[in-house]
């Protein structure tokens, strides 16, 4: 994914993580890592339960229209993969 798209999607991911954590934002190191592309941030490392992943996906759809679901996430490994998936959604 190109750096511009990556930069545009960073706030979406941060907002989605915030939603997944009951509206508490991620800590500063995680925000910085997301802004740098999130390549090394594995989804499993976020320690979200199924409810949190639903909230994550709802937030992404509200922000972008991309209909990302927990089922899609099962095939993705990192936050960077999520960004790429969103960017590939028609109309992004």
């Amino acid at each position, binding site marked *: 994914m190109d750096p511009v798209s990556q930069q545009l999607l960073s706030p979406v991911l941060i907002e989605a993580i915030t939603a997944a*954590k*009951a*509206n*508490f934002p991620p800590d500063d190191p995680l925000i910085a890592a997301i802004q740098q592309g999130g390549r090394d941030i594995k989804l499993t490392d976020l320690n979200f*339960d199924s*409810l*949190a992943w*639903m*909230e994550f*996906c*709802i937030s992404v*759809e*509200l922000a972008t229209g991309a*209909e*990302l*679901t927990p089922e899609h996430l099962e095939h993705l490994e990192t936050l960077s993969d999520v960004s790429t998936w969103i960017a590939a959604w028609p109309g992004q």
Partner: protein
Amino acid sequence: MTLDYLSAAAGLKTQNQFNRLHIDLERIMTPLEFSGLVAQAWAGELPLKTLKWLQKLRRLSPTMEGAPQPYVATEICKRMTWYRAPSRKWKSVTTPLLPLIRAIGYRFSLPSTNQKPVLVAFCGMADRVGLPLPFLLQALPADEWDVIKVTRIPGCHYLRPGSEAADLDELLTLVGTELSRVAATDVTCAGVSAGGAPAVFAALHFDIRRCVTFGGGLSDDLMPLLTELTANQPTVNNNRKSFGTEFLHLHGASNKLDQKHAHRLLSLSGGRVLALPDMENHNIPYTLLRQGRFNAKFNSLLHGDLSLGDEWQAADVQT
């Protein structure tokens, strides 16, 4: 049945839109409302995305569809809701001694309240007691319990940084007002995750019979408040504090953070810590539910004996 699902779902298209509705419903729906929804499903009135959700819930609580506990919700305020079965009418009493009793001028004095034991359930950050509300209610016979569900301050923790004492005071006032209003004498607290510490706060403040925490959290900044609450309580056996309340703190044996929090709570409240073997998940109630171990045991955990050894294979942890 007050839930108008079809109106709520009107216009929803995507899976996420349905998930939003279902997550919200799982926070407030009663077993009766769930049973009503299943009836609508059998009648072919519900969309496919709803059926998948209902099917998942049905599998986890086999009795809820056919014999739902008859709780009805009454909102007290945004953060608190009563769940109670409609009260039964008094049966008229007849006795051969009645004319004699009247003749001597004796007047019956019936109790002013017929209050059942009350469970005050403190939700975690997801505003639920670890699992969808209908599962919790279905596991608690409505003729044995009235339930108050308490949630955090909307968008915040139970106690906000900088105003912990004021928030605690407000929380205890809210709970205390309701318990006094119904003249509750047999009260149990349960707290899940972030609801663990508030449950202990309430148990220490009121005359609570039992307090059970499930992966209960207690952060550093709340320690002074709890210490203050416990400061004037009697200290007995082995320098452990002991109150009238039975305290039980449950954590997954493989979850080191929850283990640490459980022992923190224990150091202030006394009571017992139980480690559930082969459990790493922070969400104990939902894990037990998925393992098929929740429904049969939860009720007796709250007001029966505390011998969890057989059913949950829980091990007492010595401090």
